[in-house]
């Protein structure tokens, strides 16, 4: 069995991988081109350049192939007859192939059903987790207000707010269309938002001996109070994760020609491709934990707010700049 995209070989359902195919996939261009060529063809029976028969099928959104000497269909070519004589061990009945295909088809159906069930169950589970986190956050706030603000309570509050940010990110990623449908005519004070995000992440930053400073003007923009805070959260979290330990992260809010700007700047020795860093799944530091979705999501949210986000790498530091239509500046 062969994955037509990656050319990965596996022992077949009925026959092990033959040495002929194993050698061919690694060395023979005709073999590689045969399987790559199948990617654009409909599922069915095809003859390989050396006379074997390939049956393709789709599973888990990829194209796979079973290759052997299949009694029917016969392509009736000299290569086919020669291979049937020389590699009798590769003979397999068509009935056997169809049974294997039927098995994969049923597996695909079960997989789709499980995914469908998951879409019903997981949002509910997620919702319950968020409510629980909300209870932790609110009780910590109340305790801080009624008794006194201890470092322990501050840490609990901070952790709950970090958790909420992560839930917001996961939710937005799983439902981009829903995110775009959120009401976006609330007023957002960019400076206050950046300051709030700094307070949430400063403990995380302190673990890497980093500091966060917020400066600039109180620029007001219109947007969603639910989705837009994800943007500075992603930028500052990335600055902490990928920035140089012991350095300072700067978040600055400014206005220019009718636009409000939020810039996050941090020192780093990692290279960031400014064109591709917003692609879904793009990662530049495999040693650091991450999924490669934060900047992609930030761009989607900024775009939904009629803005733009750019990455400007410099020597030893990187700056991310978010530009949004300015509502007004509060003195």
């Amino acid at each position, binding site marked *: 069995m062969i994955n037509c995209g990656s050319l990965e070989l596996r022992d077949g359902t009925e026959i092990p991988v033959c040495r002929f195919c194993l050698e061919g996939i690694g060395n023979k261009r005709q073999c590689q081109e045969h399987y790559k060529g199948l990617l654009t063809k409909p599922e069915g029976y095809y003859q390989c350049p050396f006379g074997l028969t390939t049956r393709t099928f789709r599973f888990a959104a990829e194209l796979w192939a079973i290759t052997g000497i299949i009694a029917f269909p016969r392509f009736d070519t000299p290569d086919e007859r020669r291979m049937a004589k020389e590699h009798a061990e590769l003979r397999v009945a068509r009935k056997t192939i169809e049974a294997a295909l039927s098995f994969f088809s049923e597996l695909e159906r079960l997989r789709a059903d499980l995914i469908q069930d998951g879409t019903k169950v997981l*949002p509910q589970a997620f919702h319950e987790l968020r409510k629980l986190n*909300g209870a932790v956050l609110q009780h910590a706030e109340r305790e801080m207000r009624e008794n006194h603000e201890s470092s322990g309570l501050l840490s609990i509050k901070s952790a709950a707010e970090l958790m909420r940010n992560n839930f917001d990110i996961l939710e937005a990623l799983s439902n981009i269309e*829903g995110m775009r449908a959120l009401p976006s005519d609330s007023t957002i004070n960019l400076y206050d938002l950046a300051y709030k995000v700094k307070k949430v992440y400063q403990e995380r930053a302190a673990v890497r001996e980093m500091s966060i400073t917020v400066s600039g003007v109180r620029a007001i923009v219109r947007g969603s109070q639910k989705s837009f805070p994800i943007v500075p959260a992603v930028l500052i979290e990335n600055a902490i994760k990928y920035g140089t330990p012991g350095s300072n992260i700067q978040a600055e809010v400014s206005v220019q020609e009718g636009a409000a700007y939020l810039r996050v700047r941090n020192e780093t020795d990692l290279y960031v491709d400014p064109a591709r860093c917003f692609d879904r799944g793009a990662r530049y530091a495999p040693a650091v934990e991450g999924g490669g979705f934060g900047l992609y999501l930030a761009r989607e949210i900024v775009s939904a707010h009629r803005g733009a986000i750019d990455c400007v790498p410099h020597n030893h530091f990187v700056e991310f700049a978010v530009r949004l239509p300015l509502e007004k500046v509060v003195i």
Partner: protein
Amino acid sequence: MFESIKDWFRTPTLASFDNALSRERLVQSSRIVFVDDETPLLIKELKAAGFSVDHDRTGNSLRNFDNQIYDVAIVDYHGVGTKLGTSQGLDLLRYIKRVSPRTRLIAYTSRSLTSTESEFFRLSHVVLPKDFGLADSFALIEGELRKAFEKVHLFDALLAKFNVQDPTERARLQNALVKALAARNEKRFREYFSKAVGAVAEKSIDIMISKLFLGTAK
């Protein structure tokens, strides 16, 4: 000096009559309904802060909405408004928007909604996630309460309630309202409006107009 002279001749807008309500006045004058089959801590905290909060566990008793008594409605998605239809919180939100356009609508959920359900977000004025902190929740709710008292919002709601769509009629009513606000004459506007829309002794007119003139009594 010229600016202030120019101001004399400038026609005031509705927004120019918006007073900066003190927090104390806001708390005293507003009324909130929390429609949720559970009892979140936020309800207790709002009451402790002095807000008038009704906790409606089902959203099935619609009379208060029909009478437009609420400035803000905080509506959960699941388990409420079941008598209105299968879409629950969404059906209730649609109902409140129709019968009480002056009520600011807050969608209260942390649930990720499907594309059909996400109308729940679109119909609301703002979304309040259930896992917001208390301080953030208060800031959001108070923001909506202030908007509930804005003259433009109340005037638009008044016209929506009585289905006044003709632009000329709208302009005439707005002009009458501006003059009445300047003269602080609520009674004059009430009589003018009732005559214009052909509605007499309507409780909903009384509530909405009294909100319009809050803080401007002679």
